[in-house]
């Protein structure tokens, strides 16, 4: 496929890898003025993993999941527990991290299969509330665990990985995650997944095994959420179940939605910027100003969503946006008329909710009424 090699297909790998190498060099030469930068990188890498993995479910499969933090929770606790058990043997070392990630990811993926099962029967908002419920159940179970097993209300004390190196592992995981998800999406399996999003009925009639692909998507998505959880447990000294509430799931969803449904690059950018905004607000608004954090975050969120999505602002948006700005800067860049599916603009991609909405209006007339003969035939 050499002749089809186009740099734009690999641009996100290149950018992520370049940044990873740059930051690695900076870390190794101690060019960061403050360890805060390392902490921020860790948080951003974790957020990117979460957002990209959730975007598979929401953007490509078209199902709304509000329980992503639940998978992360499973990964964080299981991976954290493994690291606690391994620490006396292997020390707080790279092998410990690898084994923990493997265990955390696989167990989270197993939970993904479990929560994927209801997804076969439910969709739209019903599935959303079930995933939310799942996340809260997981959290509650870890919260009430005994002190010896998972630390209970005090949380599980886990070894913290050297912050100089942890973000590098994170960058590698992001690259792996990108490779797996993009390769999956750019293959027959990815087409099957997007076909389910666009029309489940037609996908079934075309012989797509909907059950199999829904489970695959939930498994892959929760695997990487689990990995993100393990990284989280290694970036903190303490894993707390309170962190993984539905609010956190929603925060990840916000990243995916703002990044653009079905756009992996968008999810990466949104996750980076939102995490950055969070941290900035937290470090700038201290003391008496702390109360403004949520306030500013909320206002920014509402304004961005309305600006991006309001049908009434369409003209305004087309006139003044980042893209046209970039166009002005980089004149002559042609907009290719061709589009690939996985990059379909998200406001064009109907989600399952929208489909449900359509159904709810059309299907209310149940078959019994639609079968009544024409008046013409009766007379």
């Amino acid at each position, binding site marked *: 496929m050499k002749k089809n090699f186009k740099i734009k297909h690999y641009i996100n790998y290149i950018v992520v890898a370049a940044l990873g190498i740059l930051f690695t060099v900076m870390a190794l030469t101690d060019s960061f003025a403050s360890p805060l930068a390392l902490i921020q990188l860790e948080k951003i890498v974790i957020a990117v993993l979460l957002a990209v993995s959730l975007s598979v479910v929401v953007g490509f499969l078209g199902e709304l999941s509000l329980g992503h933090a639940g998978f992360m929770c499973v990964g964080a606790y299981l991976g954290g527990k493994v690291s606690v058990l391994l620490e006396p043997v292997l020390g707080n070392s790279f092998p410990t991290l690898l084994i923990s990630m493997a265990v955390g990811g696989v167990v989270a993926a197993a939970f993904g299969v479990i929560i994927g099962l209801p997804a076969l029967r439910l969709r739209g908002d019903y599935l959303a509330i079930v995933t939310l419920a799942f996340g809260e159940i997981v959290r509650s179970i870890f919260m009430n665990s005994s002190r010896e097993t998972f630390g209970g209300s005090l949380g599980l004390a886990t070894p913290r990985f050297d912050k100089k190196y942890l973000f590098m592992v994170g960058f590698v995981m992001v690259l792996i995650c990108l490779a797996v998800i993009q390769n999956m999406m750019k293959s027959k399996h990815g087409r099957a997944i*997007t076909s389910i999003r666009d029309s489940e009925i037609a996908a079934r009639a075309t012989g797509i095994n909907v059950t199999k692909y829904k489970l695959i998507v939930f498994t892959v998505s929760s695997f990487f959420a689990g990995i993100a959880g393990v990284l989280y447990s290694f970036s903190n000294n303490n894993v707390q179940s309170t962190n993984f509430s539905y609010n956190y799931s929603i925060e990840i969803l916000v990243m995916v939605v703002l990044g653009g449904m079905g756009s992996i690059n968008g999810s990466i950018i949104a996750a980076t910027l939102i995490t950055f905004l969070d941290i900035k607000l937290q470090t700038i608004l201290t003391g008496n100003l702390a109360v403004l954090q949520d306030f500013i975050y909320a206002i920014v969120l509402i304004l961005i969503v309305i600006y991006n999505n309001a049908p009434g602002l369409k003209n305004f948006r087309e006139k003044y946006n980042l893209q046209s700005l970039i166009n002005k800067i980089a004149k002559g860049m042609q907009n290719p008329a061709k589009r690939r599916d996985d990059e379909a603009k998200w406001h064009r991609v109907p989600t399952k909710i929208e489909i449900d909405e359509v159904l709810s209006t059309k299907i209310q007339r149940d078959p019994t009424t639609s079968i009544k003969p024409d008046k013409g*035939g009766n007379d």
Partner: protein
Amino acid sequence: MSKTVLKIENLGITFGGLKAVQHLNLEVKEKQLYGLVGPNGAGKTTVFNMLTGVYKPTEGQFFLDGENLTGKSQELINHKGIARTFQNIRLFNNMSVINNVLVGLHNQPEFKCGFFTSVFRFPRHFKAEKAMRERAKEILRIVGLEEERNNLSCNLPYGKQRKLEIARALATNPKLLLLDEPAAGMNPQETADLMSIVRHIRDEYNMTILLIEHDMKFVSGLCDEVTVLNFGTVLAQGETKTALNDPEVVKAYIGG
């Protein structure tokens, strides 16, 4: 004539007491173009839904090449060789034209390529992808959409969307093709065009085709045999001309 591809025996379905379809018997031979006609709400699409596994029949059975597929899942029925199009078009709207057809090719054994083969990009993946694309282009050529293969399917005009549905169904390599009002919303030129495409498909692929249509010109120009349904029961059955001129049928259509 040749062997029977589809055999329907006493098929029927009830929705909460309402008999939508009852006592349907039907036989479609190989390479036959068979029409299913009737007024709105006669139960034609319901028959299609039973044949493709969307609804489970409450009585009767149907056989494809002698194999009983009654009540099987939609996926399995498709694998066994029944493909369909939809009355209200159901394309994969946010996918390109060629990808719609590629989804149709998903289960073809010659393009087999496991999940991990794709994720880890083993050579087999590239081979399969390339072969699939060639095949998809070929199918698109038959329905005349090759030029538009990279457009989003939702941007196609109505008539072409219908053709794309046929192409997608064709890609699953069926023994029996069910077309649900393929000519609806088309102008006379497009209809004539479609007729020749349908004939071409039949001849080229030795396809057996069962179609629902309101356009009587289309039906009589294309079908060898028809079944006329009204209120879910068979009104007339047999050679197209005779069946359509049956007094009962005329009464049901024109009213009286």
